[in-house]
C-alpha cells in the first residue's frame, strides 16, 4: 500500500490533519484503532470556552472542520465574558457526544482523497532520518512520504482508579505499547503526563430540584463563519450547578491515601488547570465548597457529566462522594471517574511547522505534544496537515505568528518553552489578545486559508465582500457628520450621553463608551449585517488600545525577523549564562524573538547573543 500522507490517530488532531491533507488533494490514509472512536469526546461534552472558542473560530477561518462540526452538534450555546471587552469574548457549546463523532466521520468518509483504516501503528519506517511509512502491529507495512502522529493519550496509556492500574485507552481499548519506545529509541525525550475525567451519572437518578439552572444564550450563535445554526434557540438543553459540601470534603480527606494520586500510584504530571477534586480539597482547604456543573452529554443517551469532580478514587469511595452531594443522594454512577497516564514527546524537539527536528517529514499534533483539550489538538492537527502537504508540494510552510492567532501562540509556546504539565490555552498566554478576537478570526486568517487551498474561491469571494462592506461602513461613519441640533442633543441626552457643542462625525461619536453602533441608526440608516457592524464598532471603540497592541506586536516582529543561523555554536559565545547556553542549545531558536521567549534566557543573554551575531555577520 502506498499513500502520500499517513495520519496516525483519529482524534480531533487526526481528523483535522487528515482532512487538510486530503482536501489539498494528497492521497491520505487515516489509521485509527477503532473507527467507532473517530472524533470521540472522551472528556467534557463541550467545545470552546475562553481562548479555546477562539481557536475553533481560527480553525474555521483557515478552512478546518471543527467549527462546522461543533455547530452541527450543539445542544446549547453560550457566549462567555459578554460583560467584558470584545477581546475575551468566547463561544462555547455543549456538543452532543453522539452527533459530533457521527458528523465528523460522515465528513471524513465523503472526502475523495481520504481512506480510513483500522489498525495499531507500532513502528515508523525510516530511511536516512526521513520517515517513509508505518508498520502496524500485524506487521503490515504502509509507505508514505509523510507521517503525522496524532496518537492522543494512547501511547502506553494506563487507566487508574485507586490502586487499580489497567493498561488501555479511555474506552478500554488497547493502547499503543511499542510506538513510544520506538520514538524513544529514535532520540525523542518522552514525558509521562496524566489527566483525569469525572464520573458520569444517570440523568433520571438526579434530583434537579436541588440544583440551579444554567441555561444557554437565547441567541443565534455559531463557530463557523458560514453562520448556519442547527439547534432550536428556544429549546436548548440546560446545564445545572451544584456545590460540594463539608461532608464531601471529609470523605475525600478520609480516603485520600486510596486515590491513585495521593496513594503514589501515578508517575505522570497532571495539569494545573484541571486539578482533581481531591487536589482542590487538599490545596485549597480553606474553601468551604467547590462548584460542580451537571452537563448533558447527548440526546441519545442518559449520561450527565459531573464537571469539576475529576478523581482517581476507588469506585466505592466515588459512590460515597457522589452521594454526599445535594441532589445526587440517589444518583447512579454510569461510568466511574478515572485518571489516565500516557506518554508524550518533548515538544521542544519540534519545528514551528510541527515537523520533528529528529526525523524529516514526521509531524506530531495534539496530546502527543503535551497539550490537552480538543481545540488545542484540532488546531495543531490542522497546521501539521497543512505543513506536511506544503512540504510535499515543495512550498513554504505556514507558520502562524503570536500576533495573528491563538494557534500561533500555542505552537510557539510548545516549541519554545516546552511543557511540564499538560498545556492548555488561556487568554493570558496571548500577549496581543486584543488582536486575537473571536470576532475577527476570519480577518486574521482567511487569506492564509485561501492561499493554502483550504478556503474555496466562492467562500473567499464572500469574505472579500465582507471586507469591502466593513471598509464602506467605516467610510460612511467618518464622512457623516451631525451638528448640535435640538433633536440630536435630545436623543443623546435620552441615551445618557453628553449633548454636542460642535459638529462631530459619527465615527467620533461612536468612540463614546456609552454609544453603540445601533444608536447611530437614529441619524443614518445602516444597511449592514450585524457582523459587519460589530467589526466597525469594536475597531472604532478600542482603536487606541488596538493601535497600542499593534505597536507592541511590531516590536516583537522586528525581533522575529532577526534570524539565528542554523549552524550557530553556542559553545563559542563568550559569557552567556550557563542556563541560557544550555537552553539555547536544546531549543535552537530560529529567531532572536523566539530566543527571548525561552525561560532562563535573560535580556542580558539576548544582548550578548545579538552582539555575537553582529560580529559573526561581519566576519
Amino acid at each position, binding site marked *: 500500500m502506498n499513500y502520500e500522507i499517513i495520519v496516525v490517530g483519529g482524534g480531533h488532531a487526526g481528523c483535522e490533519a487528515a482532512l487538510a491533507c486530503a482536501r489539498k488533494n494528497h492521497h491520505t490514509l487515516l489509521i485509527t484503532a477503532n473507527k467507532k472512536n473517530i472524533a470521540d469526546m472522551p472528556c467534557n461534552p463541550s467545545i470552546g470556552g475562553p481562548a479555546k472558542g477562539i481557536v475553533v473560530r481560527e480553525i474555521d477561518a483557515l478552512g478546518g472542520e471543527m467549527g462546522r462540526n461543533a455547530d452541527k452538534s450543539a445542544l446549547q450555546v453560550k457566549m462567555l*465574558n459578554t460583560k467584558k471587552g470584545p477581546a475575551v469574548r468566547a463561544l462555547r457549546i455543549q456538543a452532543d457526544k453522539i452527533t459530533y463523532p457521527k458528523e465528523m466521520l460522515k465528513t471524513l468518509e465523503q472526502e475523495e482523497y481520504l481512506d480510513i483504516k483500522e489498525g495499531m501503528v507500532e513502528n515508523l519506517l525510516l530511511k536516512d532520518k526521513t520517515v517513509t511509512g508505518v508498520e502496524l502491529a500485524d506487521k503490515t507495512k504502509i509507505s508514505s512520504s509523510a507521517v503525522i502522529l496524532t496518537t492522543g493519550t494512547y501511547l502506553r496509556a494506563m487507566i487508574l482508579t485507586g490502586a487499580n492500574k489497567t493498561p488501555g485507552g479511555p474506552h478500554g481499548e488497547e493502547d499503543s505499547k511499542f510506538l513510544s519506545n520506538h520514538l524513544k529509541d529514535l532520540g525523542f525525550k518522552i514525558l509521562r503526563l496524566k489527566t483525569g475525567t469525572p464520573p458520569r451519572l444517570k440523568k433520571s437518578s438526579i434530583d434537579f430540584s436541588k440544583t440551579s439552572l444554567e441555561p444557554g444564550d437565547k441567541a443565534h450563535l455559531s463557530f463557523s463563519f458560514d453562520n448556519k445554526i442547527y439547534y432550536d434557540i428556544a429549546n436548548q438543553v440546560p446545564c445545572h450547578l451544584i456545590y460540594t459540601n463539608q461532608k464531601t470534603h471529609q470523605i475525600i480527606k478520609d480516603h485520600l491515601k486510596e486515590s491513585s494520586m495521593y496513594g503514589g500510584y501515578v508517575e505522570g504530571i497532571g495539569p494545573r488547570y484541571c486539578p482533581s477534586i481531591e487536589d482542590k480539597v487538599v490545596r485549597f482547604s480553606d474553601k468551604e465548597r467547590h462548584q460542580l456543573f451537571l452537563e448533558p452529554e447527548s440526546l441519545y443517551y442518559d449520561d450527565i457529566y459531573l*464537571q469539576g469532580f475529576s478523581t482517581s478514587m476507588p469506585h466505592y469511595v466515588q459512590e460515597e462522594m457522589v452521594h454526599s452531594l445535594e441532589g445526587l443522594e440517589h444518583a447512579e454512577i454510569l461510568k466511574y471517574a478515572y485518571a489516565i497516564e500516557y506518554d508524550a514527546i518533548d515538544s521542544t524537539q519540534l519545528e514551528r511547522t510541527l515537523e520533528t527536528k529528529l526525523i524529516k517529514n514526521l509531524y506530531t499534533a495534539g496530546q502527543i505534544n503535551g497539550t490537552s483539550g480538543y481545540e488545542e489538538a484540532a488546531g495543531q492537527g490542522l497546521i501539521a496537515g497543512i505543513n506536511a502537504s506544503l512540504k510535499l508540494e515543495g512550498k513554504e510552510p505556514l507558520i502562524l505568528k503570536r500576533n495573528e492567532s491563538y494557534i500561533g501562540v500555542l505552537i510557539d509556546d510548545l516549541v519554545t518553552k516546552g511543557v511540564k504539565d499538560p498545556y492548555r490555552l488561556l487568554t493570558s498566554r496571548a*500577549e496581543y489578545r486584543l488582536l486575537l478576537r473571536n470576532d475577527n478570526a476570519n480577518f486574521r486568517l482567511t487569506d492564509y486559508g485561501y492561499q493554502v487551498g483550504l478556503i474555496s474561491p466562492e467562500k473567499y469571494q464572500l469574505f472579500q465582500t465582507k471586507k469591502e462592506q466593513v471598509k464602506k461602513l467605516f467610510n460612511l461613519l467618518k464622512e457623516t457628520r451631525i451638528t448640535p441640533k435640538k433633536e440630536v442633543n435630545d436623543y443623546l441626552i435620552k441615551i445618557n450621553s453628553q449633548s454636542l457643542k460642535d459638529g462631530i462625525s459619527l465615527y467620533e461619536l461612536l468612540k463614546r463608551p456609552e454609544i453603540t453602533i445601533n444608536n447611530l441608526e437614529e441619524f443614518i440608516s445602516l444597511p449592514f449585517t450585524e457582523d459587519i457592524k460589530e467589526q466597525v464598532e469594536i475597531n472604532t471603540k478600542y482603536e487606541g488600545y488596538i493601535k497600542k497592541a499593534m505597536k507592541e506586536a511590531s516590536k516583537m516582529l522586528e525581533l522575529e525577523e532577526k534570524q539565528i543561523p542554523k549552524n550557530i555554536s553556542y559553545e563559542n559565545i563568550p559569557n552567556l549564562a550557563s542556563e541560557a547556553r544550555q537552553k539555547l542549545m536544546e531549543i535552537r531558536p530560529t529567531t532572536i524573538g523566539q530566543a527571548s521567549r525561552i525561560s532562563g534566557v*535573560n*535580556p542580558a543573554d539576548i544582548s550578548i547573543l545579538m552582539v555575537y551575531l553582529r560580529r559573526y555577520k561581519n566576519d
Partner: protein
Amino acid sequence: MNDTIVAVSTALGVGAISIVRLSGEDAISIVNKMFKEKDLTKVKSHTISYGHIYDNDEIIDEVLVSVMKSPKTFTTQDVVEINCHGGIIATNKTLELCLKNGARLAEPGEFTKRAFLNGRIDLVESEAVMDIIESKSEEAHQLGISGLKGNISALIENFRTNLKNLLSSIEVNIDYPEYYDIEVVTIEKLKQELAKMQQDLKELIDLSVSSSHIKNGIKTVIVGKPNVGKSSILNRLLEEEKAIVTDIAGTTRDIVEGEIYLDGLLLNMIDTAGIRNTNDLVEKLGVTKSFQMINEADLVIVVLNSSEPLTKEDEEILEKTKSKPRIIVLNKSDLPKKLVLKNLDNVIETTTLNTKGIEPLKAKIKELFNLEKIKSKDYTYLSNTRQITLAKKAYQNLLDAQKSLLENNPIDMIEIDLKECFDNLGEIIGITYSDEVIDNLFANFCVGK
C-alpha cells in the same frame, strides 16, 4: 573597537589620587612614550611600575603605572592605569599627553561598554559598575553599591507582586468566567489598588530623580536682573571668588560655573548674565543664553532685590521660570524691604553681607531635593536613566489605566495597561519570565474541571 581610549577614571578633584586609564591596542606603547624610567612594553602583565610622566623633558607628575595585558582585564583589551598624585592640573596634563600620543578621549561609559561587548560583564552588573564609577560623591557611591546588592530588585519586586496578584485575579475571571465563588475584581477595587500603587510609584520616581541628582549633580542656574547680587550669592555658596563681582550692572557676561557640595549633594552652579533690556550686542547674547540656561536647569534660583519694588524685568523672569523647580531669593534683606510678592512658593530672604545670611537658601535647596528623605531611606532608589525611564513608563501605564477606568472601558482593556506596567517594571530588574501571571493564577485559585 580596538582603538585606544583614555579617560580620567576617578572623579576630578574629589580624590587625592587620580587615575588616568587607557584601553586598546596601543595603550601600552602610548604610555611608554611618556614614561622614561622603564620600557613598559617589556614589563610583565599585571605589574606596577614607579616613575614619572614627561612632556619632552619636563616632569609632569610622579606616578605609578599599572600595565595589564589582554585578555584578563576589565575590558579584555590591554589596559594601562596611571596613578597621578599631582592634583587636577597634573592629571589633566597627563590626559592631554595621552591624547597627543594617539589615544582618543573615551565617551562616557565606553570602558564599561567594551567590557560588556567583550562579554566581560552582564547588563545589570554593568549598570551598577557605571553607577559606582560615575559616582561623584559618597552618597552616589552608596547608591551604586545598593544597586549591586539587589535592594532595587526587592523594591521593584514589591510593586510587581501587587500587580501580579491583581492581574491573576482579573485573568482568572476571564479564563474561568463561570466560577461564581471567585472574587470578581470590581472597578471599585481596581480604583483603590491603582491609586495606592500610583502614589507609591510616584514617590519612588521622585526620590529616584532626586537621587539621580545626587549622582549627577543638580544643574543650578542663578537668574535675576543685573546687580541684584547673583554673583555674590554664588560666591557665598562657592566660598571663593570665582565670578567677577562689581557694582556696575552688566559685568557678568559669561556663564560662570562652579561646583558646591551641600551635605553630599552636588550643585553645578551656573551664574547668568543679568537679564535686562539692552542694546549692547554682547550683553544681549548673554541675556539670550540666560533664558536658554533656564530651560536646561534642574533648579532655578531667582534673585530679586528686596529693597526695590518689583520691576517689569523681574516679572518677566518670574514668568519664564514658573514651571521650573525654583527658589525665589529676596536678597539684600539687610536693607529696608520694599518688595511685595503675591502667592509664590519657595520664597526665602538672604543677605550676602555674611556667610550666615545665605543659610536659608542652603536649607531650602536640601528641602527641595528631598535630601533629608533620601538620606534617611537607605538609598534604595533607581539610580540610572534606563531604570528611571522605565519606571516613568510604568507610572504612565498606571495613569492610562486610571483614565481608562474613568472611561468605563472593560476590565480586560484596562488590564492591557496594567500588563504593560508589569512588563516595564520587570524590565527594570531584567526579568522576562512571561508565565509568571499564569503560575500565580493556578497557585491562588481553585479552578478546573
